[in-house]
Each structure stands twice: as structure tokens, then as C-alpha cells.
């Protein structure tokens, strides 16, 4: 982390009157939340008064992250890039999830453009109660014809409200597209070759109040930094950095990503404190042209290209990419990318949990099984999803394991007899069923004895995976229940 700003530094600039209008108990409490980026300075109404204008400016400066936050898209549908403060997520958290864009070529027939744009807009992959989606369309000027480019942009805008990246090195194409674009676009890009021409054109657009975020592209970080300096001098401040994605040696690219991020965060280099764009799409086309390193296993070039593209995308997600452009649209390719992004950008300050307690699944009665799982949201949603699909009817006890999955909670001591006892008492499950049997997940087998001892309930070790619970119950539940009842009569 760069120099750490203390809550005290922030407190000094606050009104210090503890008016509680921000919802916090004191200005010091508000300062602490500001430091952790759990609130924004807008939530303090006093700071908005002219008297505090100076302090407000100082606070903004103090609180602005070392990697500038850049947005594009529509006011109500923004893609936000950057805003990062730390090198490693455990130090605080990573803030804005890597934006994922899918390309569309302007050489495609109208129907195809429409179809692909709709695909990007509608794609959704749901996990742990969260809908994982794609973020923007990267319209590329494959034709190099400004007219075609504009026409394709129109088709996209008429059929979707997805944020757009305008991708062309042809200054005329970008200029014409800027005239009709309805949102604030990302422009890709200014290169070492077209820099002067592109910036000149953009300065005049800026004068006409056109808004855009500009990607600067060079394989040389020093040059990139110089481009930032020149852009800022001309009032172009919403910048994104592309240090080139080289499919022959992706390590070169990843190294550059790290160097840029470390320069910004650990060395305080403001000129490199901008979001980074990765181009896994380069890997896709590289493999598609016949450079297939996995042909022993996957001969079809498009499938191999998709696998290698996903591998590039996932490596970049691990190495500070704030935005990526990809070509593949196979669901099996997008799933791991979206899942990895979700994982990296979950806030380590709050474990992903659901409320512990008792959840009736289906319409359970006094003879229904009692099953005990954890409050890790992934576990919970997986289990309830499976049960719903398989028509399982049961009482689901959700134990507070501090958001840990079954195996981790068993090892860590949260899935244990004491917590089970507490859960049984708090949920009054005893009043709901006429048996005393709990079905444990297969992974909880090692703590069966502990739970039986502490709770007095009989524990049955169920299946390892919740997708097999339905079958397990159909085969065994009646028998388990009868055996238990028979034992009670003895």
C-alpha cells in the first residue's frame, strides 16, 4: 500500500460537530468508515456548505485512490474501471470488478451485429444468488471504413443500451462515431503512431462537450507514461492504459501490468495511476491463425482459441486488469472467467454469508428430515438450489460458521457440537419435528460424534454433494426414521 492515510488525518478535515446527520455516531466514526471506503464524503451534509469547500477539496484529494476511477457508458449503466488502493486483496479489498467486453466487428451483416449485441446484453450466469453479467460491447472497425463503423454503432445503440468501446486506430472513424454516440464511450485508442492526430481531434471534440474515456496504447511503459502526461496537458483526463497483450509470451504482458500497478500504488507514480486494459482477444486470434499449443488435446481451432483466450483472461484477472476484451462467447469459456472475477472481487471484509437459522424447504412437516448446513452463501445457495430442483422437502438448519464452507468449518472448528446445540435451541426445531435426527453433509463426518454428544440428537452422515441428497432421502429416509423410532421404544 502507498502511504497509509489514518482516520485521524481524515477527522481533522471533518466538521467535528458530531451532528450524526451522516448516520454515524460521531465524526470520528465517519472518518473511520471513510478510510475503509464504506461511505463517501457526500454523506456528510455539512461538508457541502461553502464554509467547508476547502476541506472538502482536501478530503477528495486525500481519499482519491492511487488508481484513478474512470467510467464510461450511460449515467444509469456505467462501467467503472480502476479505483484500486492496494496490491493484494487481503490488505483491504479490490473495488471495481474487471469489466468484461465482447467484440463486435463492423464487417458483420446487420442481423449478426444485432444478434451478437443482444447476446452480450442478455448473457447471465447465476451463482450464489448473484447474477454475473458482461459489461460492454467493443465495436471494432474491422472494415476501416468510417461509414460502416457509424452504421454498426447505430445498430448497436438502437438494439441495446450496453456501454460501448469504439475500437479503431482510424481517427476519422472515431471522429464520426463520436458525433452520433449516445453514451460516454471508451475510445481505443491512441497509439504512438496516431497520437498527435487523435489527440488533436479529441481536443476539438472536448471543446464541443463530448465526453469519452481514452485508451492509450504502447508496449513501452515509459512511452505510455509520456502519453499520459501529454493527454493531461491537453485536458484529456479520463485515461486507460494498454501496455499490449502479446500472445506469444503472455508473461511480458502480465509483468507490465504489475509494473504499472506497483508504480502507481507502491511508488506513488500519479502518471501511471490509471486503469489497465487487457486484450485476451489477441490470444484468440493468434490461436485461430494456427498457433495451437494444445492441438494434442483439442484440434478444433475455435475451441482451442477459446480455451487459450480464457487462460489469458484469467491470468489478467489475477494481475490487475481493470477491463478486458474477449472474443469467445461459449458459455463454458465465460463461466470460469466470471466466477474468478466474482471471487477476486468479493470483499474480504465481509464474508459471503446468509443469516443462520431454520429454513423450511418445500412444505416440511413433523416427519420431515432435518439437514444441517453452513451459512457460507455459496454452500447455502448450492444446497437450496439442488433441493428445489430435486423436490427435496426438509427442514434446513443453517449454522453460523462465519461464512466458511463445510470442510473448512469442520477443520476450523466452527461446524461443531456447541454451535449445533445453540442452533437447535435458537430455532426451536424440537417443536417442529417428532424425531431427533440430523442429517449431516458427508464432509462433516469427522464431527458427528461431537455433535451427537453435545446435542443428544442422532446424526446420520449423508452425501458429499447436495445434488445427491434427493436420491439419498428417497432411498433411506423412511428406514432411518423407523429405525430411530424403534430404538426409542426399547
Amino acid at each position, binding site marked *: 500500500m502507498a502511504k497509509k492515510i489514518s482516520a485521524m488525518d481524515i477527522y481533522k478535515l471533518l466538521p467535528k460537530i458530531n451532528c450524526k446527520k451522516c448516520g454515524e455516531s460521531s465524526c470520528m466514526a465517519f472518518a473511520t468508515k471513510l478510510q475503509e471506503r464504506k461511505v463517501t464524503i457526500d454523506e456528510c451534509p455539512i461538508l457541502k456548505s461553502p464554509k467547508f469547500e476547502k476541506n472538502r477539496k482536501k478530503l477528495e484529494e486525500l481519499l482519491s485512490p492511487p488508481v484513478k476511477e474512470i467510467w464510461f457508458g450511460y449515467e444509469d449503466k456505467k462501467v467503472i474501471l480502476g479505483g484500486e488502493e492496494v496490491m*493484494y*486483496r*487481503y490488505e483491504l479489498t479490490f473495488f471495481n470488478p474487471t469489466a468484461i467486453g465482447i467484440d463486435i466487428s463492423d464487417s458483420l451483416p446487420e442481423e449478426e451485429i444485432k444478434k451478437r449485441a443482444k447476446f452480450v446484453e442478455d448473457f447471465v450466469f447465476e*451463482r450464489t444468488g448473484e447474477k454475473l453479467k458482461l459489461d460492454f460491447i467493443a465495436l471494432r*472497425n474491422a472494415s*476501416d471504413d468510417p461509414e460502416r463503423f457509424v452504421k454498426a454503432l447505430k445498430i448497436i445503440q438502437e438494439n441495446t443500451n450496453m456501454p460501448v468501446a469504439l475500437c*479503431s*486506430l482510424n481517427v476519422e472513424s472515431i471522429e464520426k462515431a463520436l458525433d452520433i454516440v449516445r453514451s460516454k464511450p471508451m475510445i481505443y485508442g491512441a*497509439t*504512438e503512431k496516431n*497520437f*498527435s492526430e487523435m489527440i*488533436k481531434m479529441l481536443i476539438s471534440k472536448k471543446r464541443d462537450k463530448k465526453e469519452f474515456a481514452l485508451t492509450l*496504447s504502447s508496449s513501452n*511503459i*515509459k512511452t505510455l*507514461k*509520456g*502519453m499520459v502526461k*501529454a493527454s493531461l496537458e491537453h485536458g484529456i483526463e479520463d485515461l486507460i492504459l*494498454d501496455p499490449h497483450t*502479446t*500472445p*506469444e509470451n503472455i*508473461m*511480458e504482458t502480465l*509483468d507490465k501490468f504489475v*509494473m504499472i500497478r*506497483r*508504480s502507481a500504488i*507502491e511508488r506513488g507514480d500519479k*502518471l501511471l495511476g490509471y486503469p489497465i486494459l487487457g*486484450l485476451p482477444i*489477441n490470444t484468440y*486470434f493468434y490461436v485461430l491463425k494456427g498457433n495451437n499449443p*494444445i492441438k494434442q*488435446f*483439442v484440434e478444433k481451432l475455435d475451441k482451442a482459441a477459446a*480455451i487459450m483466450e*480464457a*487462460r489469458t483472461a*484469467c*491470468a489478467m484477472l*489475477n*494481475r490487475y486488469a481493470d477491463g478486458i*476484451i474477449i*472474443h469467445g462467447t461459449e458459455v*463454458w*469459456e465465460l*463461466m*470460469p472467467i466470471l*466466477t*474468478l472475477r*466474482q*471471487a*477476486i472481487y468479493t470483499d*474480504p471484509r465481509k464474508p459471503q454469508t446468509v443469516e443462520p437459522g431454520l429454513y423450511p424447504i418445500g412444505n416440511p412437516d413433523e416427519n420431515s428430515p432435518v439437514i444441517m448446513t453452513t451459512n457460507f452463501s455459496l454452500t447455502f445457495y448450492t444446497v437450496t438450489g439442488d433441493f428445489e430442483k430435486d423436490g427435496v422437502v426438509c427442514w434446513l438448519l443453517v449454522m453460523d460458521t462465519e461464512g466458511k*464452507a463445510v470442510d473448512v468449518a469442520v*477443520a*476450523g472448528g466452527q461446524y461443531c457440537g456447541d454451535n449445533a446445540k445453540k442452533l437447535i435451541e435458537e430455532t426451536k426445531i424440537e417443536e417442529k419435528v417428532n424425531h431427533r435426527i440430523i442429517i449431516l453433509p458427508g464432509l462433516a463426518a469427522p464431527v458427528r460424534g461431537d455433535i451427537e454428544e453435545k446435542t443428544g440428537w442422532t446424526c446420520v452422515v449423508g452425501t458429499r454433494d447436495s445434488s445427491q441428497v434427493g436420491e439419498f432421502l428417497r432411498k433411506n429416509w423412511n428406514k432411518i426414521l423407523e429405525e430411530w423410532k424403534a430404538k426409542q421404544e426399547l
Partner: protein
Amino acid sequence: MDIDELLNLMKKVKKIKIDNIEITADEIIINIPTLPPIPIPQTPPIREGIKRIVSPVEPKIEIPEVDWSPPVEKYKGYIREVQFGRPKSEGGRGKVIKIGGQRTLYRFEEVQPNPPVVTFDIFDMPMPGLPKPVREYFQDVMEDPVEWAKKCVKEFNADMVTIHHISTDPKLKNTPPKESAKLMEDLLQAVDVPFVIGGSGDPKKDPLVLEACAQVAEGEKCLLASANLDLDYKKVADAAMKYDHNVLSWTIMDPNMAKDLNRRLISHGLDGNRIVMDPTTCSLGYGIEFSINTMIRLRLAGLKGDELVNMPMSSGTTNAIGAREAWMVNPEWGDRRYRLPLWEITTGLTMLLCGVDIFMMLHPLSIAVIKEFGRLLVSKPEKIKVNTDNYEWIRA
């Protein structure tokens, strides 16, 4: 052409160029006229007080020179190097693999000395639970672990093989340690690569199985998997010391727990250079973020000089194929033949970028991709030529 005519012409044009001519003469005199010196206009110095006017319409835009140098860190510590296998010159079976030895976190700071290694998982009995996309590669050898190991080495160039003696589980076949040792002997004879030796996960049985196998593999510097806090880790460490092997120190996603176990192993007498840490791999989507944090914290602590956690790291990447998104047949999720290896690749790659040095994996395709990536880690920057330009995708 008349010579006079030519001379006249030359007067007019100052310079002529004649192609393909042949001159026959007794004497040729060529007079080269000397040119008067060209006057070079002198730029008058701009007097102070006069400012150049830059037209607002046509600003001069260029990329200025700026200062920047790669942000290379100095690290106090290093990562220990651990060796598997023994060379023929020392009476071993041949192949030697080394992991660890890093002195930096990133390649641009210093190229990593050893590439990450992937070891192929094999089992001492057929695994009915293996998903089809994996089974299709090993179906023909699953009944015979020796053939299985041979296939990994011959067909897929395995650098190492991990034998999981799962049949020793008292709840499964309860195979006696003696029989596992016999199998171990056969495996050592069949292939020349180093081995990771795993048990069934039964805390009582594992130390016995590992000890018996360690004995027959004496001197081969295998990796005994594993010593952990649930079992008699001292017995495992003793076997390693007695028969010249390394120990996998396995803990659950907690850097302090890893440190604690390493400390115990070392104070029991095990050389720290014989320890590989396994801080647990949670697969993609099932808590991989916890593994990311733990591994990167351990690696940074090691590089900062903490000698209780500066061991190379291992990842049970195979966990990934147990994730439902990897194995489940579900048309909505697309073809499982690609989905499953990609799930394992993504998990492995993430672990690789957190500093993992040795990977236990299953799918040959995933292994190929991780190995290819690992080779880049030991290549010097700019050694691999880049021919494509960054912009071809726009026009593709």
C-alpha cells in the same frame, strides 16, 4: 550522338545519369566542377520577451520524454529449494526435479530459477467417481496403477507422478501398508520420474502407509503427502529423515497454522529444506479467494525473511474438477469436455500466480497449459520473440 550535342545538353541540365553505356577511348578527362558552398541560414536567437504563439487550432502534440524505471523490490529472504528424485550418478533412478529457489516475487525482478512442476495424480484402485472427460484418457489403465504411471510419463511427458494409496482406507479395501509398499516398488521400477506418495486421508493409517512406502523408496527424495495436524506428523517426518524424503506440510488456509506446523516439524528435527507447504487449494468458485490470500501472504512472508514459511508451495489443483461447474452434465453450461479442463486450468493458473511451485493435477490438457505457462516464468524477458502487433484484432 554527337559529342558536342552531349556537351551542350550537359550545360543545360547540370547533371545527367547514363545507364548501360560502354565507352571506348584512349583518354577520358572528366572535369568535376566544384560547387560553391551552400550558405546555411542562421536561426537568429529568440530575443527574451518574445513568446512563440501556438495556434490553438493546431497545437503541437508530441509524446514527451519522462522518467520511469521498473519498480524492482529488494527482498531480505528467499524461497528454499527442494529436490525430488536422485540422479543415476548417485545411484538413483535418473530424473531430478527441483522447485523453489526464488528470490523475488515477479519475473521482471529476477527470472525464477526453476519452473513450476505438475505431478499427475494416479490412484491405486480404479476411481469410479472420476468424471468422463478425465476417464476417457485413462480408462484403459485405471485397473493397473503401474500402467497408469507409465502412460502419464510416456504419453503426456509427466515430470512427476502422485500415487494416492486410497485403497488403504479402512472403509474401502483396507489394503495393508505392506501391499502399498509392494506397489510402490513396482512403480519405482516402471518409471524414472520422482514420486509424491499419498495415503487415503485416514489419519491413523496414513503414517503407516507413508512409512512403508518411504522405506522401499529410500534415497529417491519423494514427497510424503502429508504431515498435518490431524495425524501423527512426527511419524511422517521420521520416515522422511530416515529414508531421505521430503514432507508435504498440509494445513487449512491459515498462514499461522502453516507456520505452526512447519515449526513443529523443524523442531522435531526435519530439515526445513525438506518441507513443501500445502496451504489448501479451494477450487475456483468454492473459496479460491481464501487460497489466494493465504498463498500470497505466505510467499510474501517468506520473501521478507520468515524462515518458517519460506518453503515452496504445493496445490491440490485436482480439487477443481470436483466442483459441480466442472463435472456436472448440464447443457446450459456447455460442453463438459472443455469446461472441466478449463475449470482446472483457471484454478491452477490462479495458484501459480500466487506463487505455487508444484501442482497435483488430473486432466492432461490442463497440465499441458499449466506447464506451458510455467515455462514462461523461467524465460528471460524479451527472450521469446513477439511478432504479432497489438492491433491485428481490430481488423481481424
